[in-house]
């Protein structure tokens, strides 16, 4: 049975909670540097008047601690070390008690069950040294949405303390793999960014590859062998509906949405040759962008939609090229040693992530769209297919650490620090990060 992967509807309201004191934000992490010294933060379990309230409150606090710890930018302190145990979050904390345990920030939260299907969460983020409230918010939702609340609060903290948008209230679409290599079953799957709630979207009867989110995270475009000619498909997460995209005269693959979500860009094979085409989703009109006898594939739009980076072997080996959105002005940008493929433009626009093959190893790296300032972030037997967090600070990718060891999803910071495996139910590949869920 295929489970429905539609996101739970989130009735969520933000109300600002003020505190009678000036709030000067002095606490800030510079996330452009490595994170050798992550910021200590204290996050006690959220207080509640009843056992069920305290139980969910503890789950939410635990989720926030795990999110912040995984970012590599924060060091959530062990709650067992806390001296003050607040029962009322609407009075000032005893800052001296928090300074003793050497925390820079404190998150105090409270959970109130207002009815069977409605709960209210209040929280305040404190600068312990400056003794000021950095943010105070109140949210209301249904109890089963506690993970999304935890992710939302994590995003608020991340934004307040780094100055950048967070990426915790997001999901990952990927390919779940089972069976021997010579008879592999590949299913479209979706999960939260931390690996929670993995759900299959297709049965595994047909091979599916390379899923990518639409900018609203409501649709996925991917390649499937379910049709007579392998083709680019669209999957609507809300309805579960799948459809072949367009009636192309050959195999289509390597799809990605345009940043405004109105188009899908992809490769089409004709006479054995792959070129890049773009399809307007409303008019269904298709336009050819490249016409070379070489392989042209893996196109990815710049976030302003004006340019496209892609992979081509027109120069003899696979390299990265950039062109204007209408196909004009094609120029090569990769000039380092080795071969380059699978480029993805950062949502911030300032970098392009790619897969590089050199000396029988594979690497994930980044370079500027002009092709300079190349940095290699990872090395393994097979690292491939990077995808950006919506704030452009973290990359996920497929890694097969050693020959035959099976693929999994890994993440690494743009700084090259904080390499981690993302938990998946089994072998997994082709991750794609969603935008922040609305």
């Amino acid at each position, binding site marked *: 049975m295929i489970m429905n992967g539609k996101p739970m509807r989130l009735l969520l309201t933000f109300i600002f909670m003020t505190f009678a004191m000036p709030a000067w934000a002095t606490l800030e992490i510079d996330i452009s540097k490595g994170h050798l010294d992550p910021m200590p933060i204290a996050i006690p379990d959220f207080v509640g008047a009843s056992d069920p309230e305290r139980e969910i409150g503890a789950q939410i606090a635990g989720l926030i601690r795990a999110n912040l710890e995984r970012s590599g930018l924060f060091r959530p302190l062990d709650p067992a070390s806390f001296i003050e145990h607040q029962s009322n979050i609407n009075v000032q904390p005893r800052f001296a008690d928090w300074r003793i345990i050497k925390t820079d920030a404190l998150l105090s939260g409270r959970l109130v069950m207002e009815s069977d299907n409605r709960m209210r969460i209040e929280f305040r983020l404190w600068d312990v040294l400056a003794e000021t409230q950095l943010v105070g918010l109140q949210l209301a939702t249904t109890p089963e949405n506690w993970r999304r609340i935890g992710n939302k609060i994590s995003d608020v903290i991340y934004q307040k303390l780094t100055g950048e948008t967070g990426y915790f209230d997001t999901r990952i679409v990927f390919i779940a793999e089972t069976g021997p290599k010579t008879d592999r079953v590949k299913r479209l799957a979706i999960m939260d960014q931390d690996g929670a709630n993995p759900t299959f979207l297709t049965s595994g009867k047909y091979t599916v590859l390379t899923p990518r989110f639409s900018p609203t995270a409501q649709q996925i475009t991917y390649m499937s062998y379910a049709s007579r000619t*392998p083709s680019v498909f669209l999957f609507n997460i809300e309805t579960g509906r799948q459809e072949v995209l367009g009636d192309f005269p050959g195999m289509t693959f390597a799809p990605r949405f345009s940043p405004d979500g109105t188009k899908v860009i992809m490769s089409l094979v004709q006479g*054995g040759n792959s070129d890049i085409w773009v399809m307007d989703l409303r008019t269904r009109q298709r336009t050819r962008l490249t016409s070379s006898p070489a392989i042209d594939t893996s196109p990815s739009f710049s976030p302003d939609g004006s340019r496209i980076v892609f992979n081509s072997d027109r120069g003899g080996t*696979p390299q990265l090229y950039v062109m204007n959105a209408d196909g004009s002005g094609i120029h090569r940008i990769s000039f380092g040693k080795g071969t380059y493929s699978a480029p993805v433009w950062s949502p911030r626009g300032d970098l392009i992530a790619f897969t590089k093959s050199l000396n029988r190893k594979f690497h994930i790296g980044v370079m500027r769209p002009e092709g300079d300032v190349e940095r290699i972030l990872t090395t393994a037997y097979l690292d491939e297919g990077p995808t950006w967090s919506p704030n452009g600070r973290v990359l996920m990718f497929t890694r097969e650490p050693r020959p035959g060891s099976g693929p999994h999803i890994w993440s690494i910071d743009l700084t090259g620090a904080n390499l981690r495996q993302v938990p998946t139910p089994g072998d997994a590949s082709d991750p794609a990060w969603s935008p922040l869920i609305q």
Partner: protein
Amino acid sequence: MKSAFIAFGALLFISACASTPAPEPAPAPAPAPAPAPTPPPVTGEVTPLPPVPGSVDEFQKMAGDRVYFEFNSAQLSHEARAVLSRQASWLNRYPNTRILIDGNADERGTREYNLALGARRASAARDYLVNLGVSPSRISTISYGKERPIDGRSNEEAWAKNRNAHTGIVSGATS
């Protein structure tokens, strides 16, 4: 008889390995061997039947159904051309057959690039057959990229096998 010999050998091996040989227990009396049925005398194998003319089996045996490529290449080697020439003669002899050529790549490349490379390999094989008189209308192609390895290992031998174009008879063959 033979198994008893092996068991004896294993016993010798074990005692040879032991640094301080334990005193050997007295061997239990061997049970009386059951009389083995006498196998019929073998004088030689019967000649295998030739493949049925026009069958998939015949195509595979006479022509070979797979051609191989160098890394990141869709160039047909001399050997590949020889296989495709035999495929073409067989296909021209059985004009009602239809084929699907699937192009494949080894795992050392990114997924999408390998889909394009597999398409190029399938097309190279197709074009060669067409040049030798096989009607294009009888040929379909597909690329599996690196998704359908025939050898699941990760070594040179497996990669060489997995870089191929495979010709499958989809209809019209004698069964």
